């Protein structure tokens, strides 16, 4: 039995369908990321699980209990809001202890418990401060402390790092990961940042327009995106898409990328293919530069711009099939204006049919 079970969840706001037929099983102790562009319904799904929003249809079970119609407080969940939602007029200690106060615990023990939690989050010296006097990272920690003190079955996070600066975000990412490791608790984590999802999650649920597009472990999604949307959303810089035509099907797929290019052959992975238009998907790091007349040259290209980041180089190219971004080592020999050619590794190439599905 999964720890959190969502069955055929749908949610409408008036006539607007925010979520449609969401079914998802999350195992005990799993770190599950809900990933998708802004407005795709991630927060709504999290709020349904939290009980802050009523489901339109479907069922939510936590640890085997049907919680679909339960009050948030009775679901044994805790939530960290994007805005942190700390109580501004209460001290750090009172913020952390508030759920205990609501549960009727007397003042002395609940403040002692809050102090204990604060200590694990290195907040013990701030117990009597108000949130307004804390830094972003400290507020974040208080919000986590408020969740921890309830000892919940499931932790819910709604883009908790999006208000932090880049450096703090990296640090908090590691802290959340080690928190997950230490507590071995089930965590559901909403983000639109694929880096957060990739680095922290055991499993990623990619969402778009109120539907689940694909569920999988980070590297599985990266290596085998089910469709063009997932392929484009995961990975940075984003995957290149070159429009082409399937001219040969069967055990080997032949793809024609237009004039200038040589036909490209690869082994299909997904559904069966038909002849006709299709997109070739190549990740920036899965292409190499080669001489235009070399045998492995597939597509002639001209270098437009070279960005050197030290440990890697991003090369922006123009090809007859459209723009292309390539990622190579820091010392990659390349300069703007060079005529060159792209070579693709067929085992790491993706083909997407006209419906966007991987072939």
């Amino acid at each position, binding site marked *: 039995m999964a720890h959190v079970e969502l069955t055929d969840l749908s949610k409408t706001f008036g006539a607007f369908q925010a979520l449609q037929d969401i079914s998802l099983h999350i195992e005990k102790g799993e770190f599950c990321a809900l990933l998708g562009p802004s407005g795709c319904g991630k927060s709504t799904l999290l709020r349904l699980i939290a009980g*802050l929003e009523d489901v339109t249809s479907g069922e939510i079970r936590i640890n085997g209990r049907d919680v679909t119609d339960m009050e948030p407080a009775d679901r044994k969940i805790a939530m960290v809001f*994007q805005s942190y939602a700390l*109580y501004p007029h209460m001290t750090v200690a009172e913020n952390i202890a*508030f759920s205990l106060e609501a549960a009727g615990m007397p003042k002395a023990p609940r403040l002692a418990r809050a102090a204990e939690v604060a200590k694990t989050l290195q907040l013990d010296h701030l117990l009597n401060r108000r949130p307004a006097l804390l830094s972003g990272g400290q507020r974040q920690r208080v919000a986590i402390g408020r969740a921890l003190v309830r000892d919940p079955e499931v932790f819910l996070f709604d883009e908790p790092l999006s208000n932090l600066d880049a450096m703090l975000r990296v640090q908090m990412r590691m802290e959340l990961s080690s928190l997950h490791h230490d507590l071995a608790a089930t965590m559901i984590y909403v983000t639109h940042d694929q880096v957060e999802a990739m680095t922290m999650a055991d499993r990623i649920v990619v969402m778009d327009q109120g539907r689940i597009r694909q569920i999988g472990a980070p590297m599985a999604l990266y290596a085998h995106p089910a469709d063009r949307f997932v392929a484009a959303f995961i990975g940075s810089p984003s995957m290149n898409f070159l429009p082409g035509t399937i001219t040969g099907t069967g055990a080997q797929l032949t793809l024609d990328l237009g004039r200038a290019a040589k036909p490209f052959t690869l082994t299909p992975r997904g559904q069966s293919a038909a002849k006709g238009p299709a997109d070739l998907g190549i990740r920036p790091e899965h292409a190499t530069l080669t001489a235009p007349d070399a045998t492995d040259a597939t597509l002639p290209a001209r270098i437009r711009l070279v960005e050197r980041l030290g440990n890697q180089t991003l090369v922006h190219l123009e090809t007859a099939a459209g723009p292309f971004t390539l990622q190579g080592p820091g010392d990659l020999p390349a300069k703007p204006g060079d005529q060159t050619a792209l070579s693709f590794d067929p085992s790491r190439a993706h083909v997407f049919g006209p419906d966007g599905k991987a072939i």
Partner: protein
Amino acid sequence: MSRRSRNRWVGLVYTTPALAFVSVFVLWPLCHVLWLSLTSRSLLGGGEFIGFDNYTRAFADKSFWQALEFTLTYTAYITPILLVLNLALALLTAADTPLRRLTRTVIFLPVVIGLASSSLLWYWLFDQQVGLFNKLLVDLGILTEPMIWFRKAASAQVAVTISVVWKVVGFGMILMVAGIQAISNDIIEASRIDGASSFLRVRRIVIPLAMRSIVMATVISVIGSMLAFDQFYLMTKGGPRGQTFTSVYWVFQNGFARFELGYSSALSVILMVIITSATALQLWLSRKGSKA
């Protein structure tokens, strides 16, 4: 001209209309009253500078202090009634649903009626022979026969209080609704997840976070009650036996019934000092309270 001094001039130009308004309608009358209070001016003109004579007379004027005592008593009982009703109505109608918006509008409607009109309206509603309020109470079995509300000071005050509460309760309610609505939804939701009951949420989250507007509504209602006049002038005429004379009523009596403009100005100045100090005290107390 340096940029800075230019900015200063531009700022002054922009605030001129407001400054002009305040000067003509606040500062000038204030100075005029201060000056009048030092004269023996009559409403018909004349009079001369008499220094602080009006003030020494006021301090010895038993009727004035009685009126002030009555005003303070009136303020002391109507303020908590309004505070509780304001808050209760605000809590009940703060959520933005069509029904609650409608309720809010209906409760707010009397605020836009003049106090004088509403006092007259209620005077008739309380009338012993034709008053609908009396009829209602009799029909409901609360009274056995229509009563004469304005014969006794106590029942007269009840009548005035009912009419004033009806007239002004919407104002404080709207201020508090604004304060409650300004609380971030996330915070309310966080408290739901933390398991707070409605009562705990109101006590520990909503009231503290809406405190500014609660204090503001209370201060405005205290000032309004200290300046009470229309309702008593129109409903009780200060009676029975002068038991419901308010301070402003006494100022009015001296200025416009006895024509002693200079003396009534001095009374106004004393009243102004008292109300200003009371307001300052309330704001100071509330600030101290929110820091603690």
